[in-house]
């Protein structure tokens, strides 16, 4: 049985606008599924339907074996949710919020305090637990939000852009937590606009654009579809370009006139392991390399190949892959 199964899921608003326009996806138990797309693509709308906060206007979705439309209460018992905005009560302390959440999820009264302490310690908020949430930093609120989503050991965890606005350290902490959850067997549905996050954490990625899934697969498989890694080379002085091409042809397909400041590009299946041999071969041929850059296809390349535009989370648009 799939942890999440979605078929022709749709959400149309009264204005006629379709935020989600018939998507299909399947997430296996224990998988980390990355749902990637730019702002306004339909990620949050999809999540809100799957966690029973929004009613689908078409299609079907089951989470942990229960239909979100006809068995929402059963779905809620098995999911944990950390939404895009950390939904916390700023007047309560961290501990009070955790204990309330535990109560709302039916944890026996005698276990509430211990369970709350467990999770608070796990996310590193023990020292701050008796302070009001209104005094917490953004990173602390996110951690508390995550802890609340985990208090009842859900089968499926939904994280909607969990690291947006966080500093690198907090982001890394959250990533570690996701990896730990995966090791524990929790299914994680993670929406993000950050390529690196999807790349690092997800077993499989679905890319959504304008309400439709445009690509789905493992990060590597998706990237392989759009190209191979290549080395961009820039030579010093009046380099013998025909000779350089000859040398490089022994490593892979060579391209000229790729981007500004690059003399030649060569496709290298081995990735970074190819850098030293290539430089050595060119050096032996009397060609001095001034600059070398390993360029690997990114999920942004995948998105661009499907939609013609780039994801907003991409740092800079990647050079065209070979």
């Amino acid at each position, binding site marked *: 049985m799939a942890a999440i199964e979605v078929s022709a899921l749709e959400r149309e608003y009264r204005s006629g606008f379709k935020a989600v326009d018939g998507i299909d996806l399947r997430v296996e138990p224990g998988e980390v599924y990355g749902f990637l797309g730019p702002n306004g693509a339909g990620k949050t709308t999809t999540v*809100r339907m799957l*966690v*029973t*906060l*929004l*009613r689908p206007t078409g299609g079907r979705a089951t989470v942990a074996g229960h239909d979100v439309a006809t068995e929402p*209460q*059963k779905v*809620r*018992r098995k*999911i944990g*949710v950390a*939404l895009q*905005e*950390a*939904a*916390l*009560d*700023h*007047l*309560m302390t961290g501990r*009070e919020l955790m204990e*309330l*959440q535990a*109560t*709302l*999820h*039916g944890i026996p*009264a005698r276990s509430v305090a211990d369970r709350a302490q467990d999770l608070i310690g796990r996310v590193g908020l023990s020292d701050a637990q008796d302070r*009001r949430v209104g005094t917490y930093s953004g990173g602390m609120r996110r951690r508390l939000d995550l802890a*609340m989503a985990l208090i009842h050991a859900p089968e499926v965890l939904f994280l909607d852009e969990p690291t947006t606005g966080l500093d690198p350290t907090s982001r890394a902490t959250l990533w570690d937590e996701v990896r730990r959850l995966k090791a524990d067997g929790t299914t994680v549905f993670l929406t993000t606009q950050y390529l690196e996050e999807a790349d690092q954490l997800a077993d499989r990625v679905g890319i959504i654009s304008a309400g439709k899934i445009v690509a789905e697969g493992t990060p590597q498989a998706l990237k392989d579809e759009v190209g191979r890694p290549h080395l961009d080379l820039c030579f010093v002085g009046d380099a013998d370009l025909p000779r350089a091409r000859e040398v490089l042809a022994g490593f892979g397909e060579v391209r000229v006139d790729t981007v500004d400041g690059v003399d030649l590009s060569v496709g290298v299946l081995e990735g970074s392991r190819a850098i030293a041999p290539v430089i050595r071969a060119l050096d032996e041929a009397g060609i001095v390399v001034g600059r070398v850059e390993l360029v690997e296809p990114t999920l942004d390349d995948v998105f661009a190949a499907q939609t013609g535009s780039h994801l907003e989370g991409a740092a800079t648009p990647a050079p065209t892959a070979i």
Partner: protein
Amino acid sequence: MGGPSFTARVVWALARRSIRGSLRRPQFLAPLVIFPSMFLAVNVGGLTRTTSLPGFPAVDGFLDFQLAAAITQSLLIGGVATGIATALEIEGGFFDRLVASPIPRTALVLGRLIATAVTSAGQITYFLIIGLIFGASVKGGIAGVAVVYLIGIIAGVGFGAIGQAIALRAKSASTVQGIFPLVLVVLFASSAFFPRELLSSPVDVVAKYNPLSYISDGMRNPIIDGVGSTSVLEGVASALLVVAAAGGVAVLALRGRLRDA
């Protein structure tokens, strides 16, 4: 999980949370008692001689007459405050967290209404103490005080349900706050502040059908006269009517919100 004991536990946990939130934000609680207190002071200070007007019921002082009005006004403002708290919860996203939890849907409304009942009891206590300090007395004794609490708490819950219903439909705190003038209008069109026989037309006619008249009269008569079955029954019935109507509207508003989400 599930069943009446789980529901009770959840409702109580949410009620405790609401009460705690109110106590931690005294600047929101203060208008519930300060504004009606000011009004009470000015009414008594400015119009105390009106007790000598022909047709005014026999009272020991105008303060005795006005206490029930101040309590009713305070409870109405409390209803607006309940609505504002609900709207802020919706705006801030915590309401979504509650909706995504496996709790009975009615708990979303009941928890806050129980908190409103507790706050109402506090408001009534405040005004009874203020009244006693400044020379009022409750002719009905302990029984009279009990009647005031009974009618006042039921009415307070009803007003809270109205506030919640508006918040669930409007979803914005500033919209809920904007109904405050309307609340005053309804209160003025009743016999809360002055005997019905001495109201000007057409307010006297409107007051006859306004549940606030019976609620405030039901709380007033034990103070100025003693516990009489008619006024008690009318007061309780009117308060229950408000609870039933407002509660129904609140549940419908909740269903509508969950459906339209």
